[in-house]
């Protein structure tokens, strides 16, 4: 009897250890590490961009009723749910009068006006201008007394990025939507904190053409002022190189009009033979390739089919290529005049970062000097890219949290959780700042939001246990636990049997005793 009791106690202990300690321990230690994510907050983020931007304009008039005009402009340019435009009317101050008198032309006037602090744009009436509306280099818009109100409102709406950009960003890539804005979106580089710009000079016949380009000087003189103006938006990192013996991908044909040769085929065929020699993958991050191509000697001079253009073309999201036909007679090293070359390259770079503003006819612009960008264009880019970043990061963290909720065996590390939370915070902050019209600050926050969202989505640790689905889990652990488990189960079974048997004998004992007593 004793021995049976001993074995029974031993079985109890084994069962307790295996089921009471072992099973919970195994369950806990094979749990996938999943940090808590703010699922509810992320779900409450709205997919489409629904922030009401506040825009503050100041109107300076000379000879018309400022108050009335201000009210009409505010009404015309406000978009319910998107833009709330506030126009403050005022008359020319004494300072303005003096500046206007002293200025030789509109360009001077534009340059001499004081810097705006509280307002996004200054709308100034002038006596006479070459076109009904003239846009300055800073944040000034000039109009005449006879300018139509519709034109004025249309121009202001274009500058504020009211149509177009916002509508494109929210949609999934859809080839049938607004052609113009689709084109602009396909062309420009995705929003990022920096952009490498690689200037390449390609000379296929160096033994015949002794040409060189003073690229460091050109970058310092022409690119640097442009990059300085863009430093709030994107950090431009220039580099340059020479490549030799790169073949021309196509055979040009003799020009139909004029002398020389022209490219009649698809321009994209020129890119591949060039691209293998560029080595742009060495530069980390997005890179714009600006290539100055000297055509092979037997195809001089070479132009594009449509001769009115400047012999250059843009490749979407890649860069631009320009031809350079060296003059026939040159003694010694021919140094390229960089001004027209850089004008072309910087013009292409402007389009590649998204400066493609559709302005109505009858609008003139004061020409840009080597700054190459107007202050109101910087604001336009800030608006466009902030909207893009907020939409992008919202989509990213929403799809990430949806993914993590459905696939339950992905590891969610601390890094991922903190990136998601901080991205969420940045989105909210950026939206609040954008509503107040604080463009630079809201852009910075939105950039941080999209970088964190990407860091969270593409975190390498998330794949750690992904290919360890639950059915494979059983396949691994069953051979480990079953040899130990079977004797324990069998002893459990015998324990139960003996328990029921003993309770039966107890019952029958009790019944016997009852009967005995009964009989007594």
């Amino acid at each position, binding site marked *: 009897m004793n021995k049976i009791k001993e074995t029974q106690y031993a079985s109890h202990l084994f069962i307790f250890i295996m089921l009471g300690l072992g099973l919970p321990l195994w369950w806990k230690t094979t749990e996938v590490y999943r940090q808590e994510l703010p699922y509810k907050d992320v779900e409450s983020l709205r997919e489409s961009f629904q922030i009401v931007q506040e825009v503050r304009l100041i109107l300076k008039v000379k000879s018309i009723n400022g108050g009335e005009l201000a009210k009409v402009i505010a009404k015309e340019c406000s978009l319910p749910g998107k833009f709330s435009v506030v126009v403050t009317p005022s008359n020319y101050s004494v300072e303005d009068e003096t500046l206007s008198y002293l200025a030789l032309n509109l360009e001077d006037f534009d340059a001499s006006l004081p810097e705006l602090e509280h307002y996004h744009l200054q709308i100034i009436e002038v006596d006479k201008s070459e076109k009904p509306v003239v846009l300055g280099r800073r944040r000034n818009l000039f109009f005449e007394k006879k300018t139509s109100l519709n034109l004025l409102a249309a121009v202001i709406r274009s500058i504020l990025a009211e149509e177009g950009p916002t509508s494109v960003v929210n949609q999934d890539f859809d080839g049938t939507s607004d052609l*113009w804005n689709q084109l602009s979106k396909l062309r420009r580089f995705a929003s990022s904190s920096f952009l490498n710009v690689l200037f390449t000079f390609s000379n296929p016949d160096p033994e015949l053409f002794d040409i060189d380009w003073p690229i460091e000087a050109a970058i310092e003189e022409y690119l640097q002022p442009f990059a300085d103006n863009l430093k709030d938006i994107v950090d431009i990192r220039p580099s340059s190189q020479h490549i030799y013996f790169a073949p021309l991908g196509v055979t040009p044909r003799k020009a139909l009009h004029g002398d020389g040769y022209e490219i009649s085929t698809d321009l994209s065929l020129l890119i591949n033979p060039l691209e293998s020699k560029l080595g742009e993958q060495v530069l980390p991050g997005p890179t714009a390739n600006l290539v100055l191509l000297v055509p092979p000697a037997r195809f001089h001079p070479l132009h594009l089919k449509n001769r009115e253009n400047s012999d250059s073309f843009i490749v979407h999201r890649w860069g631009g290529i320009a031809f350079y036909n060296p003059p026939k007679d040159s003694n010694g090293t021919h140094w390229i005049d960089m001004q027209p070359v850089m004008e072309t390259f910087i013009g292409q770079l402007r389009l590649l970062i998204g400066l493609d503003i559709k302005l109505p006819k009858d609008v003139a612009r004061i020409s840009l000097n080597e700054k190459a960008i107007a202050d109101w264009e910087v604001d336009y880019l800030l608006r466009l890219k902030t909207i893009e970043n907020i939409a992008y990061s919202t989509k990213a963290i929403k799809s990430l949290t949806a993914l993590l909720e459905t696939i339950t065996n992905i590891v969610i590390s601390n890094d991922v959780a903190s990136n998601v939370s901080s991205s969420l915070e940045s989105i909210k902050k950026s939206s609040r700042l954008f509503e107040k019209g604080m463009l630079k600050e809201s852009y910075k926050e939105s950039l941080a939001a999209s970088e964190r969202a990407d860091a969270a989505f593409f975190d390498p640790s998330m794949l750690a246990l992904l290919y360890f689905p639950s059915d494979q889990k059983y396949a691994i652990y069953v051979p480990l636990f079953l040899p130990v488990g079977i004797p324990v189960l069998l002893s459990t079974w015998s324990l139960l049997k003996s328990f029921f048997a003993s309770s039966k004998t107890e019952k029958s004992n009790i019944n016997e005793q009852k009967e005995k007593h009964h009989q007594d």
Partner: protein
Amino acid sequence: MLQKLALAFTCLILSAESSKSSHTNNWAVLVETSRFWFDYRHVANLLSIYRSVKRLGIPDSQIILMMAEDIACNPRNPRPATVFNNAEQHINVYGEEIEVDYRGQGVTVDNFVRLLTGRLPPETPKSKQLLTDEGSNILVYMTGHGIDGSFKFQGREDLTDVKIANAFREMWQKRRYNEILFIADTCQAASLFQKLSSPNILAIGSSLVGEYSHSHHMDPAIGVHIIDQYTHHAFEFLKSVTQDSDKRMSEFLEICPEKRCLSTIGIRLDLYQRDPRDVKVTEFFGTIRPTEEYSLDTALLKFDKNTTTVPLKSEKMSVIKIQSSSGKFQYGNQISFPKKV
């Protein structure tokens, strides 16, 4: 300028209107996972597709080539540095210019899934990353040994159909592709795409579940099979395709009938929204590079600064000196002599 740009883009859209293509760039992910000399045919398969795709325009920077066995430099290769896909040795598919991104032991399930989902470690070079965006059409071609529901990597690891489906699902979540053409030339290839659920994927397998895929012919000179049936026919078909060819995907889907290939082609069209008769073959095997002519708006950009050039000419020599206005960079100061006639 606005009108010209609009015209150029409209032409781009109109030329594609017939097949309603909506992609802006093309990528190819070509994977071969078998080791050892006797799987020569898998490497020949891979390189045949690689050559076709390169010829039709996709640059190396947009091709990810994963090759587990280096057949060309294998000590058993009697013709070193060459790989042929035909016993008559017509074409050396290894070629002179080849860029292998993942080789040998680097071809693993982990790397492959990380490549597709974009979760590679941040220090990975750009040439090893799949840098696609929402407008990319991707050709994913896999060849090697397969069984029902999985694909063997290096003879040890398994890439299951669930993993493939999850990877594509994550790619769609992040909009890392516009359309995918998934081709598998393995045994029981159709089982690999059974679990797919993401949209815009056209999947082709060289055999159905329960069938083997067969090789085409053996090269008696080297004693190994040199190419598989499906890829042989695909390569022959692609030979007739040029960059501006109008051949449609519906023709490509018919290339390997059972009486010739000995196995039945498995096709999955339910996830693909377009009709293959409207889709050109070059939309997956070729490339598109949107370009537009640029005309300088001279009224807008007018630089004032000019680097100083000081030319000094004499009969005997010319001296040119260029310097930037800050004086920091100076060029020239070269003395050159006029060319002798």
